[in-house]
């Protein structure tokens, strides 16, 4: 066994290794895990407060301790494999769990370590089924039995189902991303034909997906973070990886030690900026303007990647001057519109795991101008252009069949033109010389990578940041090259087939068989559904894996309008959340340390299993849905225990499981490295392939946004604009939230061991803004706008751009002196986004005023 990995200062760029071996970080070269304590005399030493520790991979557990495993399934999307220790039936310790084949990826953050304190605290947990006795929100409940709870719920639900199944809603979010927990409530909804919600919109992650889908055709796509060992420069743009995706941080550190300059672009000097070479502060909501300014400088200096743009993007595609649509030809003649089939998958792009689709079937109808023949011809693929048989014009005006056209690139160039260094600097709050230097460094790095983060897309017109920054990377020629890319991570899922084998890796057939189908509705419509019954009424609401009130915009509106409009609300949660307090029945859910689950994180399959007895009478989501199924006539779909489901999932003859041993890989290790060694690519879109847009190319010209004048990347002022207008004079400060070291959402709030880090929500404010308001460090301030307010302590720091104030996301009303941050946010529908898919909540597009309280 390779037990002897050292913590060498620099990492080796081993992209693809599968040795299936367990590794444990040791510091002694050439010495195994041999107990030498007695030789060193520790045995005679006075008892240390620390106790003996269970070892894995050989040494037997000591002191009645047992090694256990789990995957952290809260939604930071790292999904770290955790190695826990149980003593006397209690979890006492959490450490990074092994990642076979990728030892540098083992990680456990401070949240996952301290989580065991909170999840074993019966005062924090929902212990029993509870029925509301006081007013909604009063927190007055009585304990009832599971039988009574399920009977009461079934009676309400059956009445709604009899009238209109879609009037029953099952709202399952990201509190537990294990397959069983995450999907059980929506799977149940499908069984009875009820409504479920496409979650990304209201939670504020969907702008990234829209932006990515516009240009790449798929909503995720990232370079393996080890690829940054190949980068000379890395722009970490709106992403605080150090706190929000800590499993990747080691790779950023290794890249920097390898000579990669790291620049963080963020309104705040976030934790990641602490290890970077440079922090470039940017005004919130202005990231697309910076990307446009950089493109303008690069194109203006003739440094853009002309070959790549011509080969892999829609840059040379001809666009009609009359209506702005792509020019299309069939059999050599111009046609008004193509009649080809649309994309294969017209389903949700919000909830499905990242999947590589196929280019649209009408890809062959687009047109370029061939400079070799001086004629309009069907747009060729990248390979055909590379071999030189055709030379598409990047720029120019042409007349084809009497139709005047220009290239898409010329449209992009025009869109960039207003973004001079001066104007860009003025919009973004960055010195124009810094914009120029950044543009120069980026194009000269060869290669430079960009890691994008959702921090920049919680704005109105939220598709713009990812779309525009990705287009910058294409203009610079960095898409599909080692050390480059414009990456949006957040989960991996490999769907590459094994040659010659057609079956699935997992057996999800029974799990997918639900008889009926759920009615999937964009989550941007959930308030309207409750209040106006549009597009569906909500007479019965089942909330699972979600602190809906705390994490959705405009909480006063939820409490005053949305919740009163819903007749019956059930919340399933491990915690006494704000949402639970507004529910009629609260059911106790298990945490990921207490139930079976599967996490498909190729090349690994990872498993949760009960490491401790469920607290109180808590149950898994599958157990709960199974109980409800028995009372609602769909029990035939819920005929297995949690463990039986997992055993079925992994019981296929797929080569992935050739070496699989349930006892060893599930029970003892909790992680299995697939035998077929299918790994995600180190980079995406290599050789100009893999774009799954309608055109099959990198598509920065988006035809469907023509009605909104948004066909090429643009920057639009925010919904609540601090620059001008009545609102700006009343509320001049931009209020943003950030995910920090303390909390992903609300699950980890004040795990006791985290109190030393920070024990109350704080408002970050620049001293310039504070002094103008007579506010000193530590003062209690009121932050307000027309929707609500919060009372909170001020934290003065030079590490935030003037004009913006910020708090950590995830604190609950219990922790504010008064009010809550979510009182300040708003839910404003964006027409362009609704037309494309659905509105993304503009959580960071909020104006406030701050005053001494």
């Amino acid at each position, binding site marked *: 066994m390779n037990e002897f990995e*050292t*913590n060498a*200062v620099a990492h080796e760029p081993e992209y693809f290794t599968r040795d299936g071996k367990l590794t444990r*970080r040791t*510091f*002694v070269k050439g*010495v*195994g*895990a*041999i*107990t*030498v*304590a007695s030789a*060193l*005399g*520790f045995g005679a*030493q*006075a008892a240390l*407060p*620390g*106790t003996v*520790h269970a*070892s894995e991979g050989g*040494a037997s557990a000591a002191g009645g301790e047992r090694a256990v495993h789990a995957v952290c399934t809260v939604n930071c999307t790292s999904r770290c494999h955790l190695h826990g220790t149980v003593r006397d039936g209690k979890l006492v*310790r*959490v*450490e*990074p769990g092994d990642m076979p084949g990728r030892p540098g990826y083992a990680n*456990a*953050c*401070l949240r996952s*370590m*301290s989580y*065991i304190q909170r999840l074993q605290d019966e005062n924090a947990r929902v212990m029993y089924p509870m029925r509301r006795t006081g007013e909604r929100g009063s927190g007055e409940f009585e304990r009832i039995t599971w039988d009574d709870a399920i009977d009461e719920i079934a009676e309400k639900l059956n009445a709604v189902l009899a009238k209109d199944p879609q009037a029953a809603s099952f709202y399952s979010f990201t509190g537990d991303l294990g397959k069983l927990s995450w999907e059980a409530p929506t799977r149940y909804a499908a069984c009875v034909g009820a409504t479920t919600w496409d979650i990304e919109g209201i939670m504020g992650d969907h702008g990234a997906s829209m932006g990515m889908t516009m240009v790449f055709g798929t909503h995720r796509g990232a370079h393996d973070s080890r690829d940054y060992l190949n980068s000379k420069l890395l722009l970490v743009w709106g992403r605080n990886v*150090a*706190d929000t995706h*800590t499993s990747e*941080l*080691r790779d950023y*550190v290794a890249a*920097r030690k390898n000579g990669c300059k790291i620049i963080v672009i963020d309104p705040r*000097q976030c*934790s*990641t900026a*602490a*290890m970077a070479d440079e*922090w470039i*502060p940017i005004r919130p909501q202005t990231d697309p303007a910076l990307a446009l300014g950089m493109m303008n400088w690069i194109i203006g200096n003739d440094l853009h990647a002309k070959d790549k743009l011509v080969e892999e993007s829609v840059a040379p595609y001809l666009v009609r001057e009359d209506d702005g649509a792509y020019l299309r030809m069939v059999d050599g003649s111009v046609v008004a519109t193509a009649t080809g089939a649309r994309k294969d998958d017209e389903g949700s792009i919000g909830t499905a795991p990242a999947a590589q689709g196929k280019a649209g079937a009408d890809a062959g109808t687009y047109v370029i101008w061939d400079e070799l023949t001086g004629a309009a011809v069907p747009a060729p693929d990248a390979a055909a252009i590379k071999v030189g048989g055709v030379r598409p014009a990047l720029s120019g005006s042409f007349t084809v069949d009497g139709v005047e056209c220009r290239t898409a690139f010329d449209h992009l160039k025009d869109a960039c033109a207003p973004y001079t260094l001066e104007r860009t600097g003025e919009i973004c709050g960055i010195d124009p010389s810094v914009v120029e230097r950044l543009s120069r460094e980026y194009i000269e790095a060869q290669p430079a990578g960009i890691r994008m983060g959702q921090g920049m897309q919680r704005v109105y017109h939220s598709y713009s940041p990812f779309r525009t920054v990705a287009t910058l990377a294409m203009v610079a020629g960095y898409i599909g090259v080692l050390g480059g890319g414009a990456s949006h991570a957040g989960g991996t899922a490999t769907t590459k087939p094994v040659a010659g084998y057609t079956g699935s890796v997992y057996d999800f057939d029974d799990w997918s068989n639900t008889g009926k189908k759920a009615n999937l509705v964009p989550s941007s419509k959930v308030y309207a559904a409750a209040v106006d019954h549009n597009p569906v009424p909500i007479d019965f609401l089942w909330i699972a894996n979600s602190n809906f009130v705390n994490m959705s915009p405009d909480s006063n509106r939820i409490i005053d309008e949305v919740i009163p409009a819903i007749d019956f609300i059930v919340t399933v949660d491990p915690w006494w959340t704000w949402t639970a307090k507004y529910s009629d029945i609260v059911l106790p859910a298990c945490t990921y340390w207490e139930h079976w689950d599967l996490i498909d994180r190729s090349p690994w399959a990872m498993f949760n299993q009960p490491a401790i007895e469920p607290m109180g009478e808590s149950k898994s989501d599958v157990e709960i849905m199974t109980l409800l199924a028995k009372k609602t006539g769909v029990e035939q779909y819920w005929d297995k225990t949690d463990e039986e489901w997992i055993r079925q999932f992994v019981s296929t003859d797929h080569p992935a499981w050739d070496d699989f041993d349930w006892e060893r890989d599930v029970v003892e290790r909790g992680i299995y490295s697939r035998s077929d060694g299918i790994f995600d690519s180190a980079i995406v879109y290599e050789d100009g392939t893999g774009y799954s847009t309608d055109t099959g190319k990198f598509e920065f010209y988006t035809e469907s946004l023509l009605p909104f004048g948004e066909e090429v990347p643009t920057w639009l002022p925010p919904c609540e604009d601090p620059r001008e207008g009545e609102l700006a004079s009343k509320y001049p400060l931009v209020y943003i939230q950030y995910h920090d*070291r303390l909390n992903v959402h609300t699950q980890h709030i004040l795990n006791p*061991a*985290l109190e*030393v880090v*920070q024990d109350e929500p704080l408002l970050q404010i620049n001293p310039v803004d504070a002094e103008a308001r007579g506010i000193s*460090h530590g003062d209690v301030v009121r932050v307000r706008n027309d929707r609500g307010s919060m009372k909170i302590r001020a*934290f*003065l*720091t*030079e*590490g935030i*751009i003037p004009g913006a104030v910020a708090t950590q996301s995830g604190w609950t009303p219990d922790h504010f002196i008064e009010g809550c941050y979510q009182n300040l946010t708003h839910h404003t529908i964006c027409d362009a986004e609704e037309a494309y898919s659905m509105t993304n909540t503009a959580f960071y597009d909020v104006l406030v005023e701050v005053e001494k309280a």
Partner: protein
Amino acid sequence: MTERRYGMVIDTQHCVGCQTCTVSCKISNEVPGSAHWNHLESLDGEVLYQSTGTFPRTTLAFRPLLCNHCDNPACVNNCPSGAMHKDLATGIVSVNQDVCIACGYCSWVCPYGAPSMNDVDHVMSKCTFCAERVAEGVEPYCVAACPANARVFGDLNDPESDVRKLVQSGKAQAYLPEMGTHPSVYYV
């Protein structure tokens, strides 16, 4: 001179201030009450997490602190009961809690704020460099947990160790060497 001299090099250039070290030590060593064996300070300022300098030319940097397992430990030299002692085989400084009278002198004289009173059992407690793990050849909890790989642990007496090389190259410097305790923890 001890047989081994376990030491640590902490990379402040890559520390992101997350305090996974603080929390992993607290949880994994089951440090009771309000005691902490690791803590975090601003590298160049007064208030933790407050950037220094003036916008936009600011710095955000941290200094994680733990017992420096000094060669000339002030805590041992000033301990009236003899509870505080240095192990000759490893260089690890420990407190024998059976002997400790909880007078707190060690915490007053330590330049690094390392000894931390166990307010549950009313006895001094401190970082052990995870001696039992180290004896098995496994890194201390804080080292294994650091998501920035900012901690390097090893034997400063071993010419082949990474810690020794970092110290010998001059990249790693002791903190508060003027206190004369000859610490075994160094900072880059």
